[in-house]
């Protein structure tokens, strides 16, 4: 990987291992790098521990989304989903356990897969991508059970309301659709750009980030990042963030959002921006919180550079891992 490639690298996705000690990151060259968090966070960390322990090419195209189950790492990029065993990965073995492809209507163009989530209730994998549809795959059998159709443009992001079993999807068409996972029907459709307080026509209407927390929903993208009360289907707070946000998560009382701009924004539920923590990348694509492990409870953010910033204390950048 020469310096030019490093310069043009973008990291699109991250995922922590189930034990919490490893981080997998996927970039635009189709590579996945596994980093050892425990080595990087230990007191005697050196520069070497900030390099991946394993890098391998997973897909031909960029790896847009990564997801970890209890045992496997799922990666998806240009239309196919691959599964890797974490145990094998830590042993430096890069053989995929399986690779599957949803049923696409046209076989000419292979649409990319932008988002993947897992529904633990019925152990199904929900996949959304460039063909405007949401595919649901059964993890045990590996068959694609159903397709949710409704979006008129490609899907950016997916979120799951576990309690009600509802799937939220946001797409390029600016609509947030809420689907019932059992009936496979769209329950609601919110066109965010139609609400004046949120709309930012100069950026467009696309929704690139979705997060939900019981009755609340965060969505943002072209329109401003806004907090919605799902029962009343109305925006309660709009966050005055400058760029388009590409990922947002709820964490305790704070909302972390990343997007355009070299910072992680901490926002309060009331709608104010508490802090903007500077990062190394000029813009960020992905944010991940390692909540499964207490020892390595860090936040990592990555974007349009080969560096992944690690925050041990969420308020400042501790160090950076690099590809």
């Amino acid at each position, binding site marked *: 990987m020469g310096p030019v490639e490093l310069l043009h690298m973008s990291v699109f996705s991250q995922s922590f291992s189930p034990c919490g000690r490893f981080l997998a990151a996927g970039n635009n060259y189709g590579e996945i790098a596994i980093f050892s968090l425990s080595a990087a966070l230990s*007191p005697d960390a050196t520069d070497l521990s900030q390099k991946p322990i394993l890098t391998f090419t997973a897909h031909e195209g960029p790896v847009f989304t990564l997801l970890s189950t209890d045992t496997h790492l799922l990666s998806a990029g240009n239309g196919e989903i691959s599964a890797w065993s974490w145990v094998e990965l830590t042993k430096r073995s890069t053989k995929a356990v399986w690779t599957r492809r949803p049923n696409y209507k046209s076989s000419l163009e292979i649409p990319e897969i932008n988002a993947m989530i897992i529904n633990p209730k019925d152990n199904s994998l929900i996949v959304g991508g460039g063909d405007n549809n949401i595919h649901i795959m059964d993890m045990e059998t590996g068959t694609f059970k159903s397709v949710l159709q409704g979006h008129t443009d490609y899907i950016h992001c997916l979120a799951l309301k576990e309690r009600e079993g509802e799937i939220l999807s946001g797409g390029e068409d600016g609509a947030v659709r809420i689907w019932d996972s059992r009936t496979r029907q769209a329950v609601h459709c919110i066109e965010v750009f139609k609400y004046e307080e949120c709309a930012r026509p100069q950026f467009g209407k696309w929704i690139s980030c979705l997060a939900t927390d019981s009755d609340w929903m965060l969505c943002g993208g072209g329109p401003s990042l806004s907090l919605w009360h799902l029962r009343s289907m109305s925006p309660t707070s709009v966050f005055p963030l400058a760029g388009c946000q590409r990922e947002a998560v709820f964490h305790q009382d704070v909302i972390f959002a990343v997007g355009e701009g070299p910072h992680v924004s901490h926002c309060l539920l009331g709608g104010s921006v508490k802090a903007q923590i500077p990062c190394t990348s000029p813009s960020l694509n992905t944010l991940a919180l390692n909540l499964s492990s207490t020892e390595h409870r860090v936040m990592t953010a990555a974007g349009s550079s080969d560096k992944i910033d690690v925050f*041990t*204390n969420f*308020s*400042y*950048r501790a*160090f950076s891992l690099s590809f």
Partner: protein
Amino acid sequence: MFEFNESEVDGLHCVVCNSEAEKKNTLDQVLRGVLEEQIVSICSATTPFLLLGDVLDCLPLDQLLKSSPSWRRMFPRGNLCNSFYSAGKNYLLRMCNDLLRRLSKSQNTVFCGRIQLFLARLFPLSEKSGLNLQSQFNLDNITVFNKNEQESTLGQQSSEVKEDGMEVEEGEMGDEDAPAPCSIPIDYNLYRKFWTLQDYFRNPVQCYDKFSWMTFVKFSDETLAVFKSYKLDDTQASKRKLEEMRTAGGEHVYFAKFLTSEKLMDLQLSDSNFRRHILLQYLILFQYLRGQVKFKSSNCVLNDDQTAWMEDTTKLVYQLLRETPPDGDKFAGMVEHILNTEENWNSWKNEGCPSFVKERPAETKPTRPSSRKRAAPEDFLGKGPERKILMGNEELTRLWNLNPDNMEACKSDSREFMPSLEDFFEEAIEQADPANMVEDEYKVVRNSNYGWRALRLLSRRSPHFFQPTNQQFKSLDEYLENMVIKLAKELPKDLPSEEIKTGEEEDENGVSLLKTGSDSLQAGLQNKPVTNSQMDEIAGKLGDGWRLLADQMEMKASEVREIESDSEDVDLQAKMLLVAWQDREGNQATMESLITALNAAGFTAIADSLSEA
């Protein structure tokens, strides 16, 4: 001597006995009246301080702490009146320093602080012993932190837990009983860099060294970047904490040093007080580096880059201070003001700490009204307009005022009692002269009293006393004889000796001899006094004509008649004449004068025969 009054005696007695309440009461009583004006009349001004010092030395620490209110009452205004100040300030200083040494700074901080405050109020501002004149730093204030990874407490703890929890399942490890193995990821880099900065604050002179400066800049930039990005939460955290503190009503805890455990790093970073400490440390450091301090060595100068960096960082620090809740702006303003006043103090120290007390200009004092009922104290102490010390009695006053200043009187010349060497040893020198043939036992040097005085005088006046000599003296008188002889050789001979005298006479006679043109060689012989045998001879030759010689010798008629009546023998009469003449003349009765007289009387033959002899 002074006398204790009864209560004081009781007090002292009860300090020794066991009753607590009694002790406290009597100590109160004892100490209350001690520093009042009346003491001056009872005893000397230093006695109360000696008393206090002894009491403090005897009391154990817990007694001291309990009795501290009494001390406060003793110095109500925190300062002493003038009469006590000069007498007691050194005692008090020593007392307080001893106390401070006994007390622990971290446990008895309040009491230590009170003692320091008292000392500060006791001495004037310009008292140099209380000032840090040379701007020295407390170099011993080293902040200890885990530099070495192996020593990290985290590693140890997890191994401890492992040992304990061997039997325990994984899920239960880290539960309530055992201390949880560190649940927070630690940023070791930041930890190490952050606490290394404390070393620069401890010893700012390091900053002038190029490599240390570079490290300092790097670490500071990182730390300040962390501060900048980690904005503190105003409303939630700090207010709650403040309220908790107030409601708990707990004692304000004082930590002398920073707690540098790694686990605290996160908490410390989110604490606004801690952040203020660190930012303030930066500002103080920068003020020192920039400032003109007289005692800084000449190579402690910053170059332009460093100054520029310092300015930028100062602006950043102030901005961070303003952003730190609560009341960041106010705090930053106050800090700036205080640092500006520090500049004044710095220049005051550079000037050598001149006193702030203005000298009163010499005013003409208003003339005292001449009528006074009692003599003003200055009068009888010798400071009044007449400058006389009144002794209460005319005669005594007169005597005393001959010279009121005893020291001056002692210095006057009339009190110079030590004799000169010549005076004292005159007698001894004379006796030492073998011609005088004084016997040893009569010599004055044998007198032990004289000998002792002689030694004292020699030691004061004579260099011979100190010259080393190989001679062994068996006794004092021998030594003194030796010294006396040495002195005799040195001393100017103003003692009239006959030789000198005849020398003078010789000159006179020499002139006359030259005139007569006779044998000057024989003049030597002629200088001698006339001896008996010579007188017999002359008398025989004179015979009857002695009366003529008597006329010439200017003998009185009464003497002539006396001689005539004394004896009938003419020779004898002549002899008696010559004897009388010799008696009269004394030393002048030389052959020369006799010859002259004979010639004048007409006995030229006799005179010639005498001259020939």
